[in-house]
């Protein structure tokens, strides 16, 4: 202080600013940053609802196989992009019997969703989630959002944005590896 007050204040501010810059420089872009869900590693909320066909549906907590839960809307571009991959994934794993698909309509009219799923060739159950209970239980904020639930009922993955069949395979393989 005293004689060199300006100098010391200047240097102090500079050091603080350097810290800020270092932190900012180390931040990834928000669009590639990993979004987190507090559900990962925890028991998945129950999947109960009505399908587009009007039938009741529920998955038991420990289903014994992987469940891929996909929230979508017919008008959303990344949903349309991932659609064929989901069909591929379902086809491959239906045979192996180690995983099944469940879709949930998120922010769309039921008629549009029904037409979309039919055109896509999605044969798996699609839930209406009319009051948004499932979306809230899973903390869904954007579409498409995909959860992978392990055979023991724990959520093992949370993916926002389009997925690929290969990507889902990798997630399941990794989950199997840690289990084993």
């Amino acid at each position: 202080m005293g004689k060199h007050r300006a100098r010391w204040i200047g240097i102090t501010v500079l050091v603080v600013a350097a810290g800020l810059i270092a932190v900012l420089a180390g931040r990834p872009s928000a669009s590639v940053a990993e979004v987190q869900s507090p559900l990962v590693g925890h028991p998945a909320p129950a999947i109960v609802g009505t399908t587009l066909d009007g039938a009741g549906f529920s998955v038991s907590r420990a289903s014994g196989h992987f469940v891929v839960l996909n929230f979508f809307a017919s008008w959303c571009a990344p949903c349309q992009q991932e659609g064929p991959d989901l069909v591929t994934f379902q086809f491959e794993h239906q045979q192996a019997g180690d995983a099944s698909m469940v879709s949930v309509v998120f922010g769309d009219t039921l008629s549009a969703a029904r037409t979309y799923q039919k055109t896509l060739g999605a044969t798996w159950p699609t839930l209406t989630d009319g009051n948004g209970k499932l979306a809230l239980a899973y903390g869904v904020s954007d579409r498409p959002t995909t959860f992978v639930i392990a055979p023991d009922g724990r959520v093992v993955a949370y993916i926002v944005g389009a997925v690929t069949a290969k990507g889902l395979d990798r997630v399941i393989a990794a989950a199997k590896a840690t289990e084993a």
Partner: protein
Amino acid sequence: MNAAFGDTGVLLGFAAAVVGVLVLAIGLAKGRESTIRAGQLYAPLVLVGGLIAAVAMEHALVTHDFSVAFVADNNSRETPRLYSITGLWSALSGSILLWGLILGGYATAMVWRFRRRAAEPLVAWATLVVYGVAAFFFGLMLHVTNPFQHVVGKVPVDGAGPNSLLQDNPLQAIHPPLLYLGFVGFTLPFAFAIGSLVTGRLDSAWQRETRRWTLFAWTFLTVGIVLGALWSYQVLGWGGFWAWDPVENASFLPWLVGTAYLHSVMVQERRGLLRIWNLALVISTFSLTILGTFLTRSGVIQSVHAFSNSTIGPLLLGFFGLTLVTGLGLIAWRGDNLRSVGGIDSAISREGAFLANNLLFVAFAFVVLLGTVFPLLYEALNGGRQITVGAPYFNRLVIPIALGLLFLMAVAPALPWRKTSVEVMRGRLAVPAVLAVLVVVACVVGGIRGTEPLAAFGLGAFAAASAGRALALSVRLSWRGARLSGASPARSVLAGWRGFVGRANGGMVVHIGVVVIAIGLAAATSFGHRTEVALSPGQSASFAGHTIHFVGTRSVKTPSRSAFEAVLRVDGQGNYLPAITQFGAGSQDVGTPAIDAGWRDDVYLTIDATSTTGSRLTFGVVIQPLVMWLWVGGALLVFGSILSAVPGRRRRPTDPVSAVPESVASDHQSAPAPAHPPSVGMGAGIDRDGGAEPLADPEPVQVGN
């Protein structure tokens, strides 16, 4: 073709800026006046480069030249002409181009203004800094944000069209350019600050120029911010005008610090104090514009305004670091020699009030900055865990500061410089204080509850009355002056308008504008009501004193948009058309609100949900009082800023508070303010002309020989 011209322009701008830096550097290093003068010639070249590039881009947009990637991404054949033109600033690389163009314009204006003083080291250094900044922005356009990049692959038949939100409202045409005029305008004060630190000259010339350019940029920034709020109110559909969004904060930060500077510079003009502080404020203002650009343009923060991420982030961050290191480094190096030598005589004085004002403004800016970047800091500190810092946080910390500022706004205009006594202040503040208390009592009697809004209304009335008192005194002086100089009574009354003109009086009008905005904000945010009503055609609903009648629906289709509109009547009046609009096939639907604006309150209507069965619609209804005051206050701000730039005889803010303007003084007093001469001799003459205004100024006198 367009791209070729555009690239030429960018290249020219970049080359001119770089060569300008080099020529000036050589000239300064060798002390060669002719070289320094030659260095000034590059500013118009930068402008020409920016103009060529901008015109090329506008031509490409208007003619839908989809070979340019920027046009393909932000324009379509159906885009109306107006939104084709505004396409320039609807995405990242175009807005950097606009930045470069405006900077070129400022550089040219600066060089022109200082053409007679071009050889002074201060001016030369300032020009060099401006060139350096221009070189950075044109350099960005050369590579990372090249606006004229060719599309990858085949030229598409049609483009994607601008973001739906950006072709919904004509405000999009003026709000961003005005904001940029403000942002970029802070480059010049920064350049002068750096120049004066390098040359070690902190004389009145520095502060006069810096204050002037800051006021200019500040006015544009103010208009830009207010129009931005108006845009978000009219477009975004949630009924609010300020969400503490990072982009809003990014424009608000330089405004806060710039406002602090505009106040504290008066202490320097008048008393020669706070010199380093003022330099620091100017440097921070500019650095904050760069930081804000980084935060919102690099994609590190999600925001409604954020453009898609790009590689521009590290470069902007580096540039921010560079400005800080340069500015703060120079302050650390030179600061102690430039420190002012005196102190404040009494805390209860105009100087003391300005000091308190500055602390509050800086605290305000600190809170806003911290709140904006804290989620990033937290993630870094806490291994990726995320938090949100939102409106409740800002409101809790900022409202007390804002109330403190309102209080200062009430007291400071009545405070004399140097020292005062309780008796003097009692006399001056009695009427405003009575008014303030009356307003509070009236509000309480009228049923208004809540400490914060009541405090805002009371302090607002206090501040407005105090500003009104200052204006009334000044008008009376002008009028009396005219009468004493022999004008007829009618003419004398007319001459009273001069009481509104000039920096101090215009400043008071600005204060009143701020008060009007503060009252509007307090009322709208504290006493708003919102609800959702589901109505079938022909049904009505009553809410918060208004009746909303749903007449029916209709579909509107133009080449650029197709909309589903609901026809509503509010209190039996008018046709209000909230809509769901699709701009071009395949784009997402956006809601378009309809607003019944009034002096008392606004009724804000949106379509929140359509039902699959029947024609029943769910409407969002937001009713907020005094929203109109925000825009009126904004207009007053601009009006006051313009008044303070009008030339003529007037009171200067650095004059004694009760000073008689010279025009009056010379009529009935002896000599106009002879500076008390303590001694003659070697001490330099004191520049007492700090308050002269841009337009009234004689041409700067050439210093040196």
